[in-house]
């Protein structure tokens, strides 16, 4: 018997050039912020990467004014095909600089380089390429013969997929003729700031995209700015509800992509090995920092033990550690605050009587880490079955009949995603039709594509992103006059 240990295979950091400080990107230029600058770190090492400007209410006002001016004078007057060509340019530059984006994303977010390289960055570029083609075809989007943009769109994105969420927001907004003020998440601003550089390289007219960094108060200032026409938000359900209330009584429209507690249903005839992969991908992809994660595993009781045996064996293979290592499967938790939240919720699993099992792994001393963990013996009454943990923690429940699976799967205020694993086609369609979720993955999980609408039922949000349906979020219906 021999041991095959993989030597460290770190991705080179040399491709990125991180400035010691960053300003705000307003009207095509980097400018100083007037708020209190804050540090951004590498969550895997706690190393300070750079100092980031905080946009104050006054800075937000400048950004919105720049976006308004660009909308009125340039972007709304431009031939749609030309608008599309800017988006194609952006897509190509993102592909050219893909490795740079991937390394920066991993440094700032803590996600494995394999994922930022193979998922986040290529998908982000694909979103620009896809939406570029829509720019001059909007009359065919099913929103009337002459749909109209809203104007200036305020966009607030989360830290779990910083660049990809930027692409989900910015690409459709620009393609439909809106201009943008975007606030990246407080802990992950760097790829958005690199994207500003891409906008400059693409020659995008100043003010079409503005990037303002900061925390919750910056976001609140953006939401409440009177000259914003539309808000697009991805983040927690709590903040989403606050935004929905904040804009009441205004003419602002809003789309929300919020939390989830996705049920991943495993029937007893599932293709077992791929199912195990899907369970793992469903909850440990991106450290479980995924709103559509399959965080509730519903296993048919007669295969529970076998599924658990295989799952534990597979979890033992997960490589947890340095996100920059090309062989890492599970990286760092994004922040100390998120780690505290995961730890707190998981502890309720223990105290409420569920059985914890964590994959044996050595966690680095510095940085924020949480071992991939499953709880068995979970019931619908447990907090870990109801609340979004947003971390690498899976709650395992059982069911006896398809109807019971559906009942448990839908027994949540959320409705973003769900999974189905079975070899029987008719059962897939039966189950899919009954799941109250915006995205249903059958015999696969956590797949994303710019052509595929994404978004939630119930408290998981308002509206869709991606595909033809996603365009509706950025257009008002209108007819040729």
């Amino acid at each position, binding site marked *: *018997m*021999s*041991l*095959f*240990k*993989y*030597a*460290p*295979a770190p991705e080179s950091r040399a491709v990125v050039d991180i400035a010691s400080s960053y300003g705000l990107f307003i009207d095509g230029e980097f400018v100083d912020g007037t708020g209190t600058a804050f540090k951004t770190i590498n969550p895997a090492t706690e190393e300070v990467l750079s100092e980031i400007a905080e946009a104050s209410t006054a800075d937000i006002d400048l950004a919105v004014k720049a976006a308004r001016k660009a909308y009125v004078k340039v972007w709304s007057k431009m031939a749609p095909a030309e608008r599309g060509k800017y988006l194609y340019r952006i897509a190509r530059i993102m592909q050219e600089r893909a490795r740079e984006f991937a390394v920066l994303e991993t440094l700032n977010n803590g996600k494995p380089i*394999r994922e930022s390289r*193979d998922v986040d960055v290529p998908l982000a570029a694909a979103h620009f390429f896809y939406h570029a083609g829509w720019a001059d075809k909007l009359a065919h989007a099913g929103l009337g013969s002459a749909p109209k943009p809203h104007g200036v769109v305020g966009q607030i994105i989360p830290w779990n997929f910083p660049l990809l969420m930027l692409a989900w927001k910015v690409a459709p907004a620009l393609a439909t003729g809106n201009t943008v003020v975007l606030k990246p998440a407080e802990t992950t601003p760097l790829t958005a700031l690199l994207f500003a550089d891409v906008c400059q390289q693409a020659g995008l007219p100043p003010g079409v995209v503005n990037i303002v960094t900061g925390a919750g108060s910056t976001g609140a200032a953006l939401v409440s700015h009177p000259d914003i026409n539309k808000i697009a938000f991805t983040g927690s359900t709590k903040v989403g509800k606050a935004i929905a209330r904040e804009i009441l009584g205004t003419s602002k429209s809003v789309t929300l992509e919020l939390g989830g507690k996705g049920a991943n249903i495993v029937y007893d*005839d*599932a*293709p*077992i*090995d*791929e*199912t195990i*992969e*899907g369970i793992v991908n469903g909850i440990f992809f991106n450290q479980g920092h995924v709103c559509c994660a399959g965080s509730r595993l519903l296993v048919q009781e007669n295969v529970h033990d076998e599924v658990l045996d295989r799952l534990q064996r597979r979890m033992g*293979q997960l490589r947890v550690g340095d996100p920059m290592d*090309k*062989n890492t499967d599970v990286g760092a938790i994004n922040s100390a605050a998120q780690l505290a939240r995961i730890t707190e919720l998981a502890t309720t699993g223990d105290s409420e009587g569920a059985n914890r099992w964590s994959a044996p792994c050595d966690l680095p001393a510095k940085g924020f880490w949480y071992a991939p963990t499953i709880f068995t013996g979970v019931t619908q009454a447990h907090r870990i079955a109801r609340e979004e943990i947003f971390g690498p923690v899976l709650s395992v429940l059982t069911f006896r009949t398809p109807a019971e699976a559906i009942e448990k799967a839908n027994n949540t205020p959320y409705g973003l995603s769900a999974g189905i694993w079975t*070899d029987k086609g008719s059962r897939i369609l039966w189950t899919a039709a009954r799941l109250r979720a915006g995205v249903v993955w059958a*015999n*696969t999980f956590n797949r994303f594509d710019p052509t595929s609408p994404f978004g939630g039922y119930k408290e998981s949000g308002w509206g869709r992103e991606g595909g033809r349906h996603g365009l509706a979020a950025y257009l008002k219906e209108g007819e040729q006059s």
Partner: protein
Amino acid sequence: MSGTAYSALIDGTDHSGLSRFLSALPTVDQVGAEGRAAMLGTRSIKTTSKAYAIDTAISMIDLTTLEGSDTPGKVRALCAKAVRPDPTDASTPRVAAICVYNDMVGVAREHLDSIGGQDIRVAAVATAFPSGRASIAVKLQDTRDAINAGATEIDMVIDRGAFLSGNYGKVFDEITQIRQACGSGETRAHLKVILETGELVTYDNVRRASWLAMLAGADFIKTSTGKISPAATAPVVLVMLEAVRDFQARTGKQIGVKPAGGIRSTKDAIKQLVLVNETVGSDWLTPKLFRIGASSLLNDLLLQRQKLSSGHYSGPNYVTLD
């Protein structure tokens, strides 16, 4: 031995039980299996782990020539290469075996013994290789000829026609008969059962054929003859490794796996070792349980090995061509 494993898993020896058992195996989702194999293909094996992988891969090679144009001279040259893969570096491991048609077994055994290669085994392809289209009497004689000539490993092909027509019993019986012809006790020849996965096409079939071969007494399950494409693709090997893993879980018995055909580069070989490592675990990373059927692969491994030890790239004039 095989009978024990078989009866432990299926009811008695009637073939309808076998058929029911194979049909009840979990299915394989093609996209999921290929996705998993592709992900494992992204593993980056560097420095010390690469050196380990290269030497391990060399030691697992069944150095193969299976041509109509094979001659004693060609086979002797291959034997020399097997014993001393890199004449400039004595630390290079030897390959596991030489794999030839049965009429070349004698030549290979005799030459290996004469040049100090007693530890290298001789494997013979048998049972009307590669098509398997002959009577069982011919297949048995083919096998006995190889063993009589000194083969200690038999690489048999299954009857794919019988398998695809649902006649699992016929395939099973042939394997058990060939296994009996391999002898018994200490001197029994090891039996590798070639599934020819390129003709079985679906991963569901690969899984069923793997179980069928293991139940019938295979020591190894082998992907391909090398005469049909596709051969040892990563997802096929993944599905076969899953089968041996699950077979061990249910019977306690460790079955070997041999990918053969299409593995030509060091990168391909290392991907195979990663598949093994992350599917069945490092227990299987031994020539006793994992072999790679190949011919040109060895030189690429040697070139990479030279690069690692010297720090610069080598060239084809620095490895032996036979």
